[in-house]
């Protein structure tokens, strides 16, 4: 199967400080790749580098098209939706406006309407709160909104940055259930950054473990999960 996303020798730097030192990352079409590692390993930076939100180097391609030299908003328009850490919802706008913004790059009005209904089917809690300001939602609801907004793009690839962060266990289970459904039913590929390695490895078919900006290990999710040494050293459970 061809990869939907492929990065080779990916590097990234904040000012003079280099954070990624040449990573190779693949996401199969319709697959889920988990990005694991300790705090500060550079996981979030990988997602930012793919979306051109930091100064980056190396080569990356999406569905065979090079992402090099493209601006964030153009990469998004190719069908890559990024759910950033801290969720990035527009707190002062309503839930409905957030969803409308998710579909900003699309021109097909009728389909957007249908998607809006479909996404609200995934997250009935949001449907009840469509006119509410996003800032007044609970943490779990805001995470749902962030994912829902990303889905409104009708993406081919979803980049998720710690979707479980700061949420109650029940809400986490909820969200991961929905992610699995989206992946299975809609064929949306995912690259997911998670602290909670167990959860991520359950969802993923492939996993990468990074350590201070370098690849420590990568392989099928099951292999990574069963590797004692990796588990103890990097995943701490």
């Amino acid at each position: 199967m061809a990869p939907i996303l492929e990065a080779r020798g990916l590097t990234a730097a904040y000012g003079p400080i280099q954070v990624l030192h040449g990573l190779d990352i693949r996401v199969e079409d319709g697959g889920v790749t988990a990005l694991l590692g300790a705090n500060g390993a550079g996981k979030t930076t990988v997602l930012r580098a793919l979306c051109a939100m930091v100064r980056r180097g190396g080569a990356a391609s999406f569905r065979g098209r090079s992402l090099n030299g493209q601006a964030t908003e153009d990469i998004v328009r190719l069908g890559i939706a990024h759910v950033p850490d801290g969720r990035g919802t527009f707190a002062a706008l309503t839930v409905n406006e957030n969803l409308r913004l998710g579909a900003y790059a699309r021109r097909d009005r009728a389909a957007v309407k249908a998607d809006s209904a479909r996404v609200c089917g995934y997250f009935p809690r949001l449907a009840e709160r469509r006119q509410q300001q996003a800032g007044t939602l609970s943490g779990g609801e805001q995470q749902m909104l962030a994912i829902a907004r990303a889905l409104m793009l009708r993406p081919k690839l979803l980049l998720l940055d710690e979707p479980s962060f700061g949420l109650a266990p029940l809400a986490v289970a909820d969200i991961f259930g929905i992610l699995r459904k989206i992946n299975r039913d809609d064929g949306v590929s995912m690259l997911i950054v998670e602290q909670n390695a167990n959860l991520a490895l359950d969802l993923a078919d492939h996993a990468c473990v990074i350590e201070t900006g370098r690849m420590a290990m990568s392989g099928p999710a099951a292999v990574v999960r069963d590797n004692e040494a990796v588990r103890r050293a990097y995943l701490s459970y």
Partner: protein
Amino acid sequence: MVAFLHQVFSGLAMGAVYASLALALVVIYQATHHVNFAQGEMAMFSTYIAWDLIDRGVPYWEAFLLTIAISFLIGMVIERVVIRPFERAPALTVVIVFIGLLVIFNSLAGWRYSYTIKSFESPFPDEPWFGNSFMSSHESGTVVVTLAMLALVYIFFRFTKLGLAMRAAALNPTSSRLVGIRVGWMLAIGWGLAAAIGAIAGMMAAPIVYLDPNMMGGILLFSLAGALLGGIDNPWGAVLGGFIVGVLENVAGAYLVGTEIKLSVALIIIVGVLVAKPSGLFGRRIAARV
């Protein structure tokens, strides 16, 4: 009492001008956190464009719409060409760039149209409307035009996709890029919109204060005062603040002191209010980041 009401109502007309320019300032402030000190001079220059068009025989309302369109383009071009290189510059550096723009527009207007005062025609009839004895027809016309403009701006921001995207870009540029919004262009459109709103303010003010390259100095100050009084983070508060300042200025001029130093007195009052309530009457208190 009648005389007092007269002062209040005719204050509303200048208040409408301040309200428009205050809105123009807020549109740019919300997106960039800079106060465009050149906004008044840009409005003045737009008014000269309208004068020029009318002078060449274009009917008033066509000239009016054409001026708005031209001003919109000028605003956009200025943002793309002059302001954009300073995206990451220190705040005071940007202030100096605004001062540069102010000087340039003032000088260009003086060069092209001379510094002699010109009269600017009002599109409204000479006799007041509906036997309204408190306001001249230009004064009521100014208020009506301003309210219509405000309604359009409200509809634009509230109900259109582009308006929503502009609000989003001002609130959170990073997230906006992540949904595919071209934030730079939103800024440019914001500048265009501000320039267009300012053009309306200029064309409405010109029959009252006459047309000359320095006509906007005091108007900009009162508009800024109105914006801050109403709350610079709240466009509708800023508009209301503009109206309040207009009335206050007129009443203070008529009853407290002569017109000679009414500017100073009105300013003292405004600064006094701000000292008592630093976030403005309708503004949210912005919590300082620790």
